[in-house]
C-alpha cells in the first residue's frame, strides 16, 4: 500500500465528485426542502454537471481539474454554492501547486485551506449549521490522526467518520446563516443540506485516494 498518490494522474477524483453529487441530487434537495428551499441537489448537480462537461479528455491533473470545477461553480452556478464550493475547491487546488505527490501533509493543508476559503467568502462560523460543521471537525480529526503518526489511509478513514459525525451533529443545531436561519428554533431537528453534500465530497475524496493507494 502506497502512502501518497500522483497528483498528475488523479484528476479522476473530480470525476468521482461529480458522479456522487449527481447521484445524490434528489436526496440533497429533499434535505434542503425541510428547512431551506429544496434546491440544494438541483444547484449542486447543475454546477457539477457543467464542470464535468468542461473537464475534457484525457482528464487533466488534479489541480487543473479542481480549478475547472471551481471556476465553473463560481462563474456559472451562482447562488451561494457557486462562491462557497468554488472557493473551497480553488483553495484546495492552491495547496497542490509545486507538489507532485498528494500525501498526508498536503491533504491536511488542503483541508485547512478549504476551511479558510469557505469562511472568508461566507463569513459563517462553526456551529451555524452549514457545511463548515462537516468540514471543520473533519479537518481537525485528520490533523490529530496525522500528528499522532497514523498512516495517510487510516487518517482518511478517521476523517470520513468525523465528517459523518459533523454532518449528523447539524441535526441538533439551530441555523444561523442562509435561508434556514429565518426559521430560528424551527430549524432544529434535521440535517443541514450543505453539511451533507460536504460530507459526500470529503468521503468521496477519501475513498478515491485510498483506492489509488491500494488501501
Amino acid at each position, binding site marked *: 500500500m502506497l502512502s501518497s498518490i500522483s497528483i498528475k494522474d488523479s484528476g479522476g477524483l473530480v470525476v468521482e465528485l461529480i458522479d456522487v453529487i449527481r447521484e445524490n441530487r434528489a436526496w440533497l*434537495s429533499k434535505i434542503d*426542502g425541510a428547512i*431551506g*428551499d*429544496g*434546491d440544494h441537489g*438541483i*444547484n449542486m448537480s*447543475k454546477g457539477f454537471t457543467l464542470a464535468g462537461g468542461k473537464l475534457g479528455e484525457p482528464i487533466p491533473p488534479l489541480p487543473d481539474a479542481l480549478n475547472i470545477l471551481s471556476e465553473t461553480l*463560481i*462563474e*456559472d*452556478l*451562482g*447562488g*451561494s454554492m*457557486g*462562491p*462557497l464550493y468554488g472557493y473551497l475547491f480553488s483553495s484546495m487546488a492552491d495547496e497542490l501547486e509545486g507538489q507532485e505527490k498528494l500525501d498526508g501533509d498536503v491533504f491536511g493543508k488542503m483541508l485547512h485551506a478549504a476551511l479558510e476559503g469557505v469562511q472568508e*467568502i*461566507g463569513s459563517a462560523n462553526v456551529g451555524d449549521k452549514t457545511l463548515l460543521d462537516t468540514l471543520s471537525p473533519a479537518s481537525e480529526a485528520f490533523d490529530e490522526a496525522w500528528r499522532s503518526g497514523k498512516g495517510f489511509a487510516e487518517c482518511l478513514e478517521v476523517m470520513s467518520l468525523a465528517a459523518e459525525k459533523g454532518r449528523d451533529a447539524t441535526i441538533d443545531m439551530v441555523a444561523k*446563516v*442562509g*435561508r434556514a436561519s*429565518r*426559521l*430560528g428554533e*424551527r430549524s432544529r431537528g434535521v440535517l443541514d443540506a450543505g453539511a451533507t453534500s460536504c460530507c459526500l465530497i470529503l468521503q468521496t475524496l477519501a475513498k478515491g485516494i485510498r483506492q489509488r493507494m491500494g488501501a
Partner: protein
Amino acid sequence: MNRIFNNPDFIVEDAVRGYLKAHPDILAATDNPRVLRRPAAPQKDKVGIVTGGGSGHEPAFLGYVGNGMLDAVAIGEIFSSPSAKAFHDAFIAADGGRGVACLYGNYAGDNMNVKLAAKQAAKHGLTVKTVVANDDVPSASKDDRSKRRGVAGEILMWKVGGARAEEGADLDEVIASAQKAIDATRSIGIGLSACTIPAVGKPNFHIEDGHMEVGIGHHGEPGVAVMPVKPAREMADLMLDHILPDLPFEKDDDVAILVSGLGATPVMELYVLYDRLAEVIEARGMKTRHLFIGNYFTSLEMQGVTLTMMRLDSELDRLLAAPAHSIGLTRV
C-alpha cells in the same frame, strides 16, 4: 403543480428568450445568456446601473432594464443569485466609462457573487460601487439593519439611481442618491399562500389555509408572526404599524408608496388594501406624491402583498418623477 414550462431546469433560459423576442426595443442580448442590457448600453459618459438577482420575481429584475432605469441585469436561477460571472459581465455591459453602480438586494448569495465580480472587475480597472437594499423591516431588528433583506424597495432605489445617472451625475453621486433612497425606504410583506419552483415540484414552505404570515420574505423566508387571516383593513394597519415607526414616517412627510402583489393575489385586492392604506396615510398627515400598485416584485405564484414606503426629499421626489421606460415601470 399546473404550470407553464418545458424542461423545468431551463425555464429561465426559455423565459429570457421570450423576453428578448417580445421586447427588442427595450432589451438586448449580450454574449452571456444570463445578462441582458438596454439596447443603448453601454452609454458613453453615463454611470452604468446594474442589478441582478434570482428569477421568479418578474417583472423584477430584468423588467426594470430601460431608459432612466437599469442598464444591465444579471439573471440567476429561480430564487438563486446570479453567478459572479453574470454580475461581472453585466458590469461590462453597463460600463460607459464612468464606472458602474451595482444596486442589489441583501441576500447571502448575491453578496458573495457581487463581491467576487467587483474584485474581478477591479482587476480590469473597472470601478464598481454598490448599494445593498435592506428595506424589509421584519427581517431583522432596527439595530441590525445591515442584516435586513432587500425587497420591493429595490425598485424605487433603481428608479432613483437610474434617474440620477441619466442626469449626468458621477458614480459617487449616483451611489449617494441610491443609498439615500434605500435609507429612506421601508417595506413589509404579508404571505397568504406558498409557491413552487417548477424544478422542485412542490412548495418549499407552507401557510395553513385561513392563515397569513406577517413579515414573510420574497422566497418564503419566515416572517415574524403567523395568524388567522385578518380583514384587509387590519392587514393594512398591521403593515403600517411595522413600518411607520421604523423610519419613522411622520406628519407632513411626502411619501412614495408601492403596493406590490406577490404574484397570485388578484389585483383588485391590492386596491382593497390600498383603500385603507390611503385612509391612514392621509389621516397621519402624510402626502403621497408617487404611487405604484400592481405586481411589481413577485414571488412566482405566491399569494400576498408587500407594502413599501419611501420618505421623499426634493431630490428623491424629482428622481422618482423623471421619465423612465421599462417593461415593469414607465413614466412619461
